[in-house]
């Protein structure tokens, strides 16, 4: 059983389009992170959200933490080929928890 479910698992779109990736759970998390992983590399932290309803923006990427702290979304505006990669959400089950639980990832391909 996957504690964090990401959808879609695969997404292939054209450059310039918008997209949203979802990370859902039936459990409450004290914080959620989003990572991007490129082939042959480890995941790189993009953002951490800690407050229910929190919205963070990173250039064309918008991250939102659900009000109940059970879900999160990543929205990319005007996607570019450089956005291609595996996007992973990860959560800490409780305040101060050291171990993170990861979703299975969304493999995003942006076609020129």
């Amino acid at each position, binding site marked *: 059983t*996957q504690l964090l479910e*990401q959808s879609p698992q695969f997404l292939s779109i054209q450059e310039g389009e918008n997209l949203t990736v979802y990370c859902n759970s039936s459990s409450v998390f004290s*914080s959620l*992170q989003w*990572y991007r992983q490129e082939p*042959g*590399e*480890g*995941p*790189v*932290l993009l953002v*951490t959200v*800690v407050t229910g309803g929190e919205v963070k923006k990173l250039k064309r990427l918008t991250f939102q933490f659900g009000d109940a702290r059970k879900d999160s979304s990543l929205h990319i505006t005007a996607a570019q080929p450089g956005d291609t990669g595996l996007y*992973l959400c*990860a959560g*800490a089950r409780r305040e*101060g*928890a*050291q*171990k*993170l*639980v*990861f*979703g*299975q*990832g969304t493999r995003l391909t942006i076609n020129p």
Partner: protein
Amino acid sequence: EAGVTQSPTHLIKTRGQQATLRCSPISGHTSVYWYQQALGLGLQFLLWYDEGEERNRGNFPPRFSGRQFPNYSSELNVNALELEDSALYLCASSFGRVIGYTFGSGTRLTVV
């Protein structure tokens, strides 16, 4: 500042052999985490070391073990290798309250 470094980058072993993977955390980080990323799957938590002690262990058999040295570097040992152990093994480090991991580039272990 040097990031998390892992060695070797690639490792090929035959079934039944032992593999040793190494990780050097970011300077000043006392916690080291090991994750397994099998092809097509998300990250599965293996082990967490902090201040030289094993703090938490994921749902893996005892042939997966490790240790943390006084300089906070860490080793992951996998005994009696099986074909399904083939995966990317990622190490991450942190200090204090976890708000996100810094990952190394991983060791690609192939068991033939």
